[in-house]
C-alpha cells in the first residue's frame, strides 16, 4: 500500500538565504537558513529547549512569509503559483506538529485520514487500513476512534506519527516527535523513518532533546544547529 512518489527534482526541500522577519513573533527568530534536503535524506535540526517554536516547518510548508531568500518544495518556490496549487503541494507533506495538532470536531481517525481524503481519490477503506497498519508499527493496536480531547497524550502523539507518514509523503516534517512519548517507542519511529527514507521521502526532524541529537542514525543524517539565530551545519554525531 505504501508507495512514495519519488520527486524528479534533485532536492525535495531547499532553503536559500532565508531569513524570518523579526515581526513574526510566534516563532524563534532565525536570520540565516541555508540548506537542502534530497530525497531519502534525513536532516536533524537542534533547536533551543524551552524557547519559541522553530520556524523551519511552517517555512518549509510556505505558511510563513520570509523577509528574504526563497523556500522551494520539489523545485518550486512557495511564492510561485496560486493558493490552490500551494494547497495541493502541501498535501504531499506530512508533519508532526509541535503543538495543538488536532481538529477538535473530528475524531482522531478522521483527523489522521483528513489530508488523504481531501487530496486523493483513494477509497476510505484503503486509507483506514494503511493508517491502522502504520499504527501497529508504532505500537498502537489501531488509530484511535475517539475525539482528541479524550485520548491520552502519548497515544495522540503516536497517532500524529501515523498521520505524518500516511500516504507516502514526499517530505516529512517532524517537530519534536518524541514530545509526551516514552523513549521506548523511539526505535519504532526510527524504523518508520528508515522505511520511508528508503522509499524516497525526505525527512526533517526538529528536536531539542540531546538524547535524540546524539543518537546514531542509519543512514547518517545531516545535522544543523541553531546558533546565534543562524542554522549552522554540524559535522559528526556527537555535537
Amino acid at each position, binding site marked *: 500500500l505504501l508507495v512514495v512518489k519519488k520527486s524528479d527534482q534533485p532536492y525535495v526541500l531547499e532553503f536559500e538565504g532565508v531569513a524570518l522577519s523579526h515581526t513574526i513573533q510566534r516563532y524563534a527568530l532565525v536570520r540565516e537558513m541555508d540548506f537542502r534536503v534530497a530525497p531519502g535524506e534525513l536532516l536533524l535540526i537542534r533547536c533551543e529547549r524551552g524557547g519559541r517554536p522553530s520556524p523551519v516547518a511552517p517555512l518549509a510548508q510556505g505558511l510563513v512569509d520570509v523577509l528574504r531568500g526563497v523556500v522551494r518544495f520539489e523545485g518550486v518556490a512557495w511564492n510561485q503559483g496560486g493558493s490552490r496549487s500551494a494547497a495541493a503541494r502541501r498535501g504531499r507533506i506530512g508533519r508532526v506538529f509541535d503543538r495543538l495538532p488536532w481538529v477538535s470536531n473530528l475524531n482522531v481517525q478522521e483527523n489522521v485520514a*483528513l489530508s488523504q481524503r481531501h487530496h486523493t481519490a483513494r477509497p476510505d477503506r484503503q486509507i483506514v487500513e494503511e493508517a491502522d497498519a502504520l499504527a501497529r508499527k508504532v505500537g498502537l493496536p489501531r488509530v484511535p476512534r475517539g475525539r482528541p480531547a479524550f485520548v491520552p497524550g502519548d497515544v495522540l502523539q503516536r497517532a500524529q506519527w501515523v498521520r505524518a507518514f500516511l500516504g507516502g509523503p514526499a517530505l516529512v516534517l517532524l517537530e519534536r516527535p518524541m514530545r509526551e512519548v516514552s523513549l521506548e517507542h523511539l526505535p519504532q519511529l526510527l524504523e518508520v523513518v528508515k522505511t520511508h527514507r528508503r522509499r524516497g521521502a525526505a525527512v526533517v526532524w526538529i528536536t531539542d532533546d540531546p538524547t535524540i541529537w546524539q543518537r546514531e542514525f542509519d543512514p547518517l543524517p545531516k545535522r544543523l544547529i541553531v546558533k546565534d539565530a543562524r542554522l549552522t551545519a554540524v559535522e559528526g554525531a556527537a555535537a
Partner: protein
Amino acid sequence: LKQAGKGFFNRQLAGLVRLAGIFMVRARGTGPKKRTAAGVNAPMQTLLGRMALVLLLPYQALILLGGGVVRWWERATYLLGVVAAVLTLAVMPSSWPRTVRNVFARQMLFTGVDSMFFTMRISIAVGVMVIVQAQLLLSTIAQSDLLGTVLMRVIVRELAPLLANFVVIVRSATAMGTEMANMRREGEVDVLDAQGLDPMIYLVMPRMLATALTVFCLAVVIVAVSFFSGFLMSSLLGAASGGAERFVNNVVNSAQFRDLYFFFPKTLVTGLFIGAISCVEGLSVRGAATEIPQVAGRSAVASLTVVSAVTASLSLIIYGTILSIEVF
C-alpha cells in the same frame, strides 16, 4: 487606488489636525514662546486659533461620521467579496472533495434537520395567528375568496423567509461564529492550512452554502406547516368557510410565478450572508478567549441587521420592478 486615496486623505487630515493643534495651543496661550510665528502678534494668533477651532469642528464631526461610513462600506464590500468568492468556488467541481461534502452534509444536518421541530412549532403559531385572523377578517367583509392571495402575500412573500432567517440566526449563526472563533484560537485553522486544506474551501464555503439552502428549506417548511395548522385551527373554530378543498384551491389559484421572485432571494441570498458573517466574525478572532462570546453576539446582531436590510431592499427592488411594469 484605495491605498493611495487613503494615504492622501490621511496626510491631508494629519496636516489639518496639526495646524489646528498649533492654533489651539496659541489660542489657549500655553504654547512655547519659541513657536510664536515671527511677525504675527499675540491677539491675532488667539483670534486665528479660535477661528480655526470653530472652522474645524464641523470638519472633525464629518471625519467621525465619514470614518464610520467608510468602515461600514469596507465591511460590506468585504462580505460581498466573500460571498462572490464562495459562489465562484462552489461552481468548480475541484472544490468539492469528499471532505468538503462531509462538512456540507454535517452543516445541513445541524442547521437544517436539527432545527426542524423548532421551526415547525413556530410555524404552527404563525399559521394560527395569521390564517385565523385573515379568515375572520375576510369572512366579516364577505371576501373569503381573497384568503389565498392574502396568505401568499403575507406568509410566502414576507413572513416565512424572515422567520426562517431568524431561526437560522438564533440556532446556527451564533454557534458557527463561536466554532470558527474557537478553531482560530486553538490553531486548528493553521493545522488545516498546513495539511493543504484551504480554510475558505473546507470551512467557509460548505457552511455558507448549507446555511443558504437550510434557510430556503425551512421557509418551505414554515409555509407548509403554517398553512396546514392555520386551516386546521380555523376549521376547528368554525371560521373557515368551505372545506379543505376550497382552501387548497384558493391558495393554489392565487399562487403566481412572481412569488418566487420574493421567495428565492429572501432565503438564499440572506442565508449566504448569515453564513458569511458568522464565518468572517469567527475567523477574525486574534487570540483572546474573551473575544469568543463577543463573536457570538456580533454574529447574531450583524446577521439580523443584514437580513433586515437585504429583505427590505429586495422587497423595495422587486415591488419597484413590478410596479413599474404594471399596477400591483
